[in-house]
Each structure stands twice: as C-alpha cells, then as structure tokens.
C-alpha cells in the first residue's frame, strides 16, 4: 500500500456527503470498476456514519490507500466502541452498518476503542480485481 491520502471531518451527519465526494474523487483516479468503487463507497460511508452516530468523537479521519492489488479505506475516531447487538424485535430495523461493510468489502478489520484506550479504527479493503461477485442467494 502506498499513497495514503487523509482527510479529517467533523463528526456530524452533514459531513457524510463531503466524505463521499472525497472518496469518489479518489476512486475516479484509481482505476477501480464502478461496481467495486460503489461497494467501497457504501462500506466506508457506513463506517463514517458509525463514527458520527456512536463514537462520541468530535471528528473522524478517513484515509485512502491505493495499492497495486487492493484499495484500503480506513476510518478512525477517538471514541469508545459501544458493545451491543441490535435485535430488531426490540429496537426496530437496524444494525445493518457492520453487516453491510462485511458483505461489501473483501476484508474488514475493526479495532475497538475502549475507555482505557480510546479510538475505534475500521479498515475496509477491496481487491482491485474481483470480477466475480458472489451473488446473494
């Protein structure tokens, strides 16, 4: 991985369009197929939405890393990971963010901030050549 490009955003919902503009701009210059870029954009957008909704941080950072065989997007905040599982029967539909990241990226890594060691880091990797998309069944 080379060529890391970083951008910091305020942790508000209004930042998300700007995050996507940033990611679209990077993707355009990266030679990704549109489908691959779309998957990465959605996965990364979910990670950023989580930083906004759950981290309690004032800001979050997005890092784009362009590699020969894969693209990595990292989203970092300074908060504590909220350890819970959403159950639809109690809370209504939701809890789709991390499952979407997992379904869309080829590799997902979540390092969770704790009270003693704050800062959640989500790394999403997409291979350049995943011509074959496993279908939904």
């Amino acid at each position, binding site marked *: 991985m080379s060529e890391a490009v970083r951008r910091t955003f305020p942790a508000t*919902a*209004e930042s*998300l*369009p*700007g995050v*996507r503009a940033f990611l679209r701009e990077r993707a355009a210059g990266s030679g990704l197929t*549109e*489908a691959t870029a*779309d*998957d990465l*954009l*959605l996965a990364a*957008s*979910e990670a950023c*939405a989580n930083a*906004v*909704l759950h981290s309690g941080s004032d800001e979050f950072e997005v890092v784009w890393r362009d590699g020969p065989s894969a693209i990595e997007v990292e989203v970092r905040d300074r908060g504590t990971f909220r350890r819970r599982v959403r159950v639809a029967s109690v809370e*209504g*539909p*939701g809890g*789709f*963010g991390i499952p*979407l990241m997992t*379904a*869309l990226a080829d590799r997902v890594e979540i390092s969770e901030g704790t009270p003693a060691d704050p800062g959640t880091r989500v790394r999403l990797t997409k291979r350049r050549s995943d011509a074959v998309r496993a279908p*939904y069944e």
Partner: protein
Amino acid sequence: MHPGRIAPMLEIAPTDDPPGLRLVGEVDLDTVAELTAALEPHVQSGGEITLDMAGVRFMGSSGVQVLIRTLNSLGDRGRLVLTHPGGSVRRLLQVMGLDRFDNLEVRA
C-alpha cells in the same frame, strides 16, 4: 456548484401519477428525516407508493431502515414500488435481499 458549498443532498418532489415521490440526491443520515416525513402521509393512507429512484446516486443503511420501516408499517395495507434504481441502489437492495419483501417491487 460553488466550491466549499454543498448543494441540498436530497430533493424530494411529490408525484401524482403514479402517486409517490421523486428522489434526487443522496439518502443517508442527514436526509432520512425529510424522507420519513415525506413518506408519512402515504404510509397513513396506504395503497401503492412509487418512489422514483433514478436520481438517487447514493443510499446508505439509514435509507434502507426507512424503507423497511415503511414496508413494515404498510403491511398488507399498501406497497412500495421503487422505479429506475441505479447500480449502487440495486446492489444495496440485492445484498439486503429486499426483493423478498412481499410488498416491495423494484422496477428497472
């Protein structure tokens, strides 16, 4: 667009024929409140609600949550028809298997 300024991220226009909404922009955290509000009267009255998705270039999980809540509220009192979704919305719907909702129809 002016540099440093961001256009309104979701335009929601009511449509009469078919009854529903035309959406243009991005459906996400910052715009779902408006979408929920615009859907509310349709959910109340039930029947078929058509969302023209041709102009939606991004939808995130908070948008999907609104769709699912709408489908759940409608139950068998109504249905949602999504027309002309672009590639990224189609991908989202497919990964989430939303085609299996009885009261959702996706029309190319």
